């Protein structure tokens, strides 16, 4: 399928999703759906660096929260900006952080790179915690705008729709990369960096492209968060569960293709939402752990890899 066809198909699927959610006519569907969609974006973004290029990033929460805090800053400084503009800003900030982090850490391989990303998340959280303008440890209260410019109805529907479009965008980007020269370059780096260089692949430049894309998309996913939760503090924005979920979803779905993170995010995200309502919210992380252990043993290549066998 060509890229244009795929985007059209994805937009139709998104439209169907949105209409279905409207038909159910229950605000909670939008609340829960937003989280699942947010994880589709995060898992897809993580997979560009982690799955395609082979660099495991434990710092998802940092990119995500920096996007969210960009919105907090803009909400105070430029309250008239529309949300999509804030999301772009959040994407740019997190993309730039990705570029900086890439320059500093991409010479590290394997576990050392992962530890460096985790350290980066801790540093970012400390900085935000000590920044009074965005609320510091107290956190920041965000009042949602009265109208969402498109809907006269619920603001949550607007947030849902925006996240839906962002997930279509990120999946389309990931899929386009897969069979492009960029995708072959990423795979070569993942498999053998030395051989990739010897084959003419500019490894450092490609890895930087991957961190910027991955970080930027995570930042965009985080940007609407303050309007979703209406209260944001560093401990919840930088929560380790974002990092854990975002790694678990591609691993469960399969890291080799764009479809894996999408399946993983829908499956795990929905399961967590259902468990939160029916059992308890604390159980959702336990679920992730159990599923991850199960998949590592039974289907190390994820659901997509399982079906390809």
């Amino acid at each position, binding site marked *: 399928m060509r890229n244009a066809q795929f985007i059209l198909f994805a937009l139709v699927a998104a439209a169907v999703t949105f209409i279905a959610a409207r038909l159910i006519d229950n605000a909670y569907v939008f609340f829960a759906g937003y989280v699942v969609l947010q994880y589709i974006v995060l898992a897809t973004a993580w997979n560009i660096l982690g799955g395609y290029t082979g660099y495991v990033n434990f710092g998802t929460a940092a990119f995500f929260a920096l996007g969210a805090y960009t919105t907090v800053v803009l909400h105070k400084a430029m309250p008239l900006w529309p949300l999509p503009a804030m999301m772009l800003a959040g994407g740019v900030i997190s993309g730039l952080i990705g570029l900086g982090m890439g320059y500093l850490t991409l010479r590290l391989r394997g576990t050392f790179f992962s530890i460096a990303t985790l350290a980066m998340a801790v540093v970012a959280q400390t900085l935000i915690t000590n920044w009074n303008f965005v609320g510091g440890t107290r956190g920041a209260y965000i009042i949602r705008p009265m109208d969402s410019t498109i809907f006269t109805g619920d603001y949550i529907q607007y947030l849902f729709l925006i996240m839906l479009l962002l997930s279509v965008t990120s999946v389309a980007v990931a899929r386009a990369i897969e069979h492009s020269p960029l995708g*072959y*370059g990423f795979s*070569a780096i993942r*498999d053998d960096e*030395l*051989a990739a260089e010897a084959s*003419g692949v500019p*490894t*450092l430049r490609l890895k930087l492209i991957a961190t910027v894309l991955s970080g930027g998309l995570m930042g965009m996913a985080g940007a609407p968060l303050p309007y979703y939760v209406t209260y944001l503090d560093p401990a919840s924005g930088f929560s380790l569960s974002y990092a854990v979920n975002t790694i678990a979803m591609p691993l469960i779905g399969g890291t080799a293709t764009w479809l894996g993170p999408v399946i993983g995010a829908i499956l795990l995200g929905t399961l967590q939402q259902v468990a939160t309502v029916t059992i308890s919210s604390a159980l959702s992380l336990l679920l992730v752990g159990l599923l991850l252990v199960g998949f590592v043993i039974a289907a190390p290549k994820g659901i997509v890899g399982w079906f390809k066998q």
Partner: protein
Amino acid sequence: MSDALLMVSGLGKRFGGFAALSDVELHVEEGERLGLIGPNGSGKSTLVNCLCGTLRNDVGEMVFGGVALNGLSAHRRTRLGMARSFQLPRPFPTLTLAENVRVPILYAADVKAGVVIDPRRRCEELLDMVGLLAKADRRPADLTQVEMRKLELARAMASKPRLLIADEAMAGLSHQEVDDILTLLMTLNGQGVTIIMIEHIMRAVLAFSQRLVVLVAGRKIADGNPQDVVRQPDVVAAYLGS
């Protein structure tokens, strides 16, 4: 000699207190078949790594096709037309054979030629050349040792090099398989590719090389006609002891 394809002068590389290469002089003419031999640990692979940019040399100059190589990254050197095969094959394990060959076509050959070529056809040509076309959709794990070496050569050739450095492409292969690789290298040379062969199998080196260079303990001790070089007393001493 000023228009040699590759000129190396005063090349030196140290690992801590150990001098892996010292004051190596080397020139390779366009279209030449050069054999490079030396006992284990004599610096052959270090020389290849310095040439290809995997390691940085401490001192000395290298000029390839009129371009000074010092400070250029490995992928830039590949794009200039210098390709290598690895001593232990290093295929991309998750990619099919066709995709393995496609990477350098996309990143090295395309960039150099500046024209759009048909990557799929070029993949097939290269795999056909080494006799692996039937396995184009398989992964490297399915290959035998000799097929792996052939894939390594096909991938090196995919970047359309002017100079191919074959680092022990035949080590551990059977008599017949050595002949296969030898024929392949001769064919490539016939097409105008300059080749440096690093090898321990003397039968292959002597059959292949027009000129033989011997490294011992990081120094070049002989350079000349292969038959003369192997009779040189210090070369014999390096291999057999004096």
